[in-house]
C-alpha cells in the first residue's frame, strides 16, 4: 500500500535523530558531556510536550511546569514512601499529570487567548506553595545500593542518556502522529480561526482537552527522569519554578513552535550554549544563564518570531507539491466530471434522503436580542429539502444573526430550531455541522497558514477519520468547485472569488445536507457572480439544500426558489420571488419607493 509506505517514510528523520543521539552516547567520554547531552534530550522532550498544546493548538501555557513537577514529585514520593520502583512510578506520575490536565483544562479552556495564558500561571504557583506547606521543600531520592537499576540509579552516565533518549523518541513519535492525524489538523485549524474550525465540524473544546492531556503525560515522564538523572533532590523551585517554563519556552521559541523539529533544534543549540557559559563564567557571573535565555527570547521575537526552524524553511526553495492521485484529478471544465466530484465530496453513508419539499429545518418563533436591539423577533419559517431559499433584507435586518442561530454560534433567547425534527438549539456549532448543516461566512474565514487543500481537509475530517481518505474527499471537493489547480497554495495568494470557492469546498467536504451561504456573491465580478450562481445550482442539483443571504437583487431573483424577507428582525414576507417582490410591505421596507415606481412602470 503506497499510503503505508509514505507513512513509514515520515518516520525516517526520527530514526536518524535517534541514531545520531545513540552515536553521541557512545562517542562522548567525559561525564560532563554526557550531562549536557542528557539535558539536551530532556529539554527537547519537555519542549515537545509544551509544543503539543501551545505550538500545534496555539494555547500559550505558562504553567506547563505543573505537569513536569507532578511527574517528578509523584515518582519520587512513591520511591520514598512505599519503595515503588520509578519505572512504575513515572507511569503513576504521568497518570496523575493527565488527571491534573483534565482538572485544569475543564475550567481553563473556557478562557481564550491572554486569559488562558494568565490563568495557567497560577497552577504551578499554587502547587509550589502547597509542596512547601506539606513539608516537601527538599525530597532526596534514597540511595538503593542493592538494586540500583530497579531504582533508576546508574553509575554509567550513558544510562541516563538512553533513558532521556527513549522519552524523546516516544514524544517525537507522538508529535509525528499528531501532525499527520485528524487531531493535528483540528488543532492547527482552531489555532488559526476557532470559529471557522467549529463551523467546519471541529469539536474545539474536545480537541484542546485531548491535546492538553497528551502534552501533560510526556512532561510528567520527563520530569521524573530529570529528578533521577540531574536533581537527586527534588525541591518545589527546581520542578515548579519559573526556570523550568523559561527553559521550555526558550527551546521551543528559538527552535520554532508548531513543528516537532523546532524544540529539538532549539534544545540542541540553547542547552549546550547555556551550560558552557554556566560552566565557564557562571561562578563569577551567577545570572549569565538567565541573561542569555532572556536575550535569546528577545532576539528571536524581534528577528525571527516564528523560530529558527521556520526561518530556515522559508529560505529553502518551495516544497515539491504532492502529485494528485489519478482518478480524483478532475478538471473544472466538463460539468459531468465536476458533478461526479461533487457527489464524491458530499457522499455520506447511512443518511436517508428526505423527500423533496419535506421540512428540513423548522425555525420556530426565534427571538434574539442584543443590548437594546432586537436582532430577531419571533421569526418562524421552514426550509424545504431540495430548495434554494433566499434570505433578504436591508442592512441590520438580522440575516447573519439568523445564520448564527441556525449553525449554533448564538443561542436564541426564545424559540427553537429543529433539524430533521430534532431540536438543535443549544448544540455546539460542530455538532450541528456533523448533523449536516454547513455554512460559509460573509467575510471568508480561512486558516491562513494551511494550504487550500488542508483548509478543505479540516471539513473533510467530519466524515473521514483517516488522513488519506480525508485528503481524497478534500480533493474531490476542490475539483467540484474547480479549484483543484490551487490546492497546494496558501489562501493568502487567492483572489476573492477563489477564496469563496475554497470556503464552499470546505463546507461541501463536510458532506452537508444543507448549506448556509452568507453573501457568497459579495465582492465578485459579473463573471464571478455567474460562475458562483452556476455552482450553487449544481450543489442543489446534487441534492444539497441551500439557504443563501444575498444583496444582489437580480441574482437572488434568478437563483432562488423561495424568499424570506427580514426587516428589523421580523419576517415581513415569504414566498416565491415573483410574488415577494410585488408585496407592497416588502417593497416599502426593503426596496424603497423608487423600486415601487420602477415596478409600476414595467407593468404600464
Amino acid at each position, binding site marked *: 500500500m503506497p499510503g503505508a509506505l509514505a507513512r513509514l517514510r515520515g518516520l525516517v528523520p526520527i530514526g536518524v535523530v535517534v541514531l545520531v543521539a545513540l552515536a553521541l552516547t557512545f562517542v562522548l567520554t567525559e561525564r560532563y558531556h554526557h550531562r549536557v547531552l542528557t539535558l539536551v534530550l530532556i529539554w527537547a522532550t519537555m519542549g515537545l510536550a509544551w509544543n503539543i498544546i501551545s505550538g500545534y493548538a*496555539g494555547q*500559550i501555557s505558562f504553567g506547563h511546569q505543573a505537569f513536569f513537577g507532578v511527574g517528578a514529585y509523584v515518582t519520587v514520593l512513591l520511591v520514598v514512601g512505599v519503595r515503588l520502583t520509578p519505572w512504575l512510578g513515572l507511569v503513576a506520575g504521568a497518570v496523575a499529570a493527565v488527571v491534573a490536565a483534565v482538572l485544569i483544562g475543564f*475550567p481553563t479552556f*473556557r*478562557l481564550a*487567548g*491572554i*486569559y488562558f*495564558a*494568565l*490563568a495557567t*500561571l*497560577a497552577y504551578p*504557583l*499554587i502547587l509550589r*506553595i*502547597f509542596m*512547601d*506547606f506539606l513539608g516537601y521543600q527538599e525530597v532526596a531520592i534514597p540511595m538503593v545500593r542493592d538494586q540500583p537499576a530497579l531504582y533508576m540509579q546508574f553509575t554509567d552516565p550513558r544510562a541516563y542518556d538512553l533513558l532521556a533518549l527513549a522519552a524523546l523518541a516516544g514524544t517525537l513519535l507522538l508529535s509525528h502522529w499528531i501532525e499527520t492525524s485528524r487531531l493535528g489538523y483540528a488543532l492547527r485549524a482552531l489555532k488559526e480561526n476557532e470559529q471557522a474550525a467549529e463551523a467546519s465540524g471541529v469539536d474545539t473544546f474536545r480537541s484542546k482537552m485531548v491535546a492538553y492531556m497528551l502534552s501533560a503525560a510526556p512532561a510528567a515522564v520527563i520530569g521524573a527522569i530529570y529528578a533521577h538523572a540531574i536533581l537527586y533532590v527534588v525541591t518545589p523551585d527546581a520542578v515548579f519554578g*519559573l526556570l523550568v517554563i*523559561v527553559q521550555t*519556552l526558550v527551546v521551543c*521559541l528559538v527552535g520554532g513552535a508548531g513543528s516537532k523539529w523546532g524544540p529539538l533544534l532549539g534544545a540542541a543549540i540553547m542547552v549546550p550554549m547555556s551550560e558552557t557559559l554556566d560552566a565557564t563564567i557562571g561562578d563569577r*557571573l*551567577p*545570572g*549569565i*544563564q*538567565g*541573561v542569555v*535565555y*532572556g*536575550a*535569546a*527570547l*528577545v532576539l*528571536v*521575537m*524581534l528577528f525571527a*518570531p516564528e523560530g529558527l526552524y521556520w526561518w530556515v524553511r522559508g529560505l529553502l526553495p518551495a516544497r515539491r507539491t504532492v502529485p494528485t492521485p489519478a482518478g480524483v484529478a478532475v478538471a473544472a471544465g466538463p460539468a459531468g466530471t465536476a458533478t461526479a466530484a461533487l457527489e464524491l465530496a458530499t457522499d455520506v453513508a447511512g443518511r436517508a434522503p428526505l423527500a423533496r419539499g419535506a421540512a428540513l429545518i423548522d425555525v420556530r418563533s426565534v427571538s434574539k436580542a442584543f443590548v437594546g436591539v432586537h436582532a430577531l423577533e419571533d421569526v418562524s419559517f421552514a426550509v424545504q429539502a431540495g430548495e434554494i431559499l433566499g434570505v433578504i433584507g436591508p442592512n441590520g435586518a438580522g440575516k447573519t444573526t439568523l445564520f448564527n442561530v441556525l449553525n449554533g454560534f448564538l443561542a436564541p433567547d426564545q424559540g427553537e430550531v429543529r433539524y430533521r425534527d430534532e431540536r438543535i438549539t443549544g448544540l455546539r456549532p460542530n455538532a450541528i455541522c456533523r448533523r449536516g448543516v454547513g455554512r460559509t461566512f460573509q467575510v471568508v474565514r480561512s486558516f*491562513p497558514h494551511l494550504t487550500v487543500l488542508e483548509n478543505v481537509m479540516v471539513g473533510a475530517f467530519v466524515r473521514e477519520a483517516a488522513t488519506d481518505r480525508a485528503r481524497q474527499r478534500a480533493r474531490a471537493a476542490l475539483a467540484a468547485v474547480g479549484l483543484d489547480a490551487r490546492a497546494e497554495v496558501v489562501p493568502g495568494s487567492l483572489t476573492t472569488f477563489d477564496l469563496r470557492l475554497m470556503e464552499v469546498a470546505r463546507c461541501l467536504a463536510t458532506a452537508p445536507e444543507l448549506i448556509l451561504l452568507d453573501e457568497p456573491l459579495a465582492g465578485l465580478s459579473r463573471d464571478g457572480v455567474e460562475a458562483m450562481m452556476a455552482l450553487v445550482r449544481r450543489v442543489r442539483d446534487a441534492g444539497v439544500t441551500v439557504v443563501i443571504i444575498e444583496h444582489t437583487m437580480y441574482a437572488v431573483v434568478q437563483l432562488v426558489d423561495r424568499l424570506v424577507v427580514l426587516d428589523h428582525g421580523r419576517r415581513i414576507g415569504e414566498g416565491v420571488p415573483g410574488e415577494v417582490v410585488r408585496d407592497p410591505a416588502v417593497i416599502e421596507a426593503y426596496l424603497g419607493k423608487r423600486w415601487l415606481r420602477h415596478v409600476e412602470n414595467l407593468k404600464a
Partner: protein
Amino acid sequence: MALGELVQYVVTGLLVGGVYALMSIGLALIFGVMRVVNFAQGDFMMLGMYLTYFLAVGYGVDPLLGALVAIPPFFVLGLVVHRVLLVRVTGGGDPQRLMDAQLILTLGLSLIITNATTMILTPMPRGIRAAYATQAFAVGPVLLNQARSYAFLMALLLAGAVYAFLTRTDLGKALRAAADEPEAAGYQGIDVRAMHGLAFGVGIALVAAAGGLLATYHPIEPTVAVNFIVLMFVAVVLGGLGSIPGAFAGGLLIGLVQSLTLLVLPFQLQNVGVFIAFLLVLYFRPQGLFGQRLRAV
C-alpha cells in the same frame, strides 16, 4: 475573634493594597492603551527599589522622596524601551500572534533585567532602615505601621494624579482616544505610536515609584519581581483588564485578600487565597469585577 482584630487585619490589608494598587495601575495603563501584557513590569519595580535604596544609602534621600525622584528617569527609560523593543511587536498584524510575541518579548526582557541585576549587584538582599518602618500610629486599638501608612498615602496621591491627567488634560484624552479607537484616533491627527510610548513611560514610572514606596518596608533583591508581577496580574484582571480605577480597586482587594487569608490559613498559604480568587474571577467574570469591556479609563 474580637472585632478589633478583624479591623486590624482589614486595615493592614488595605495599607499594603495601596502600594499594590499603584503598581497595578501602571500595568493596567500599558495594557489599556497598548494591549500589551508587560511581563517585565515587576522588574522595573525592582529597579525602582534599587534606585531608591542607593539614593537613601548614598545621599541620604528619604525613600518616600526617592520614590518620587525615580519617576522622571524611569519615564525616560520606558520611552526608550518602547522605542527600541515594543514598537516592533505592536501595531499591525494578527492580534493573537502579536499578543504571543509581546508576552515572550517582555518575558525575555524580564529575564535579562533580573539576571543582569543579579550579576551586577549580587543576589544579596538589602534593606533601607527607615526609622518609621518599625513605628506605628495607634488609632484606638488599631495599629497603623508608619511606613505602610506613608506609602499608602503617596500611592493614593500618585494614582489620583494619573487619573486627573487622563480625564482632565488634552494629552490624557488623546491617550484614551488612542486606546479606545487607535484607527479613528490616527485619523484625528493623534500620533498613536507616541501615545503608546507615553503610556509605556508613565506605566514604568508608576511601577518604579511603587517600588520605591515598597522599599520602605520590603527587602530589596533582584528576584523580588516574580512575587509581585503575579499579584499585579491578579489585580489587573480583578479590575477588568485595562481599567485604571479597576486596577486600583483590584490592588486594594489583593492586599485585603492576602491579609484576611491569614485569619483562616497558615502564613505559608497567604498567596493561595490570592491565586484562588484570581482563578475564580477568570472563570466567572473574565471581564473583571467592575469592567464591562476593555477600556483605558
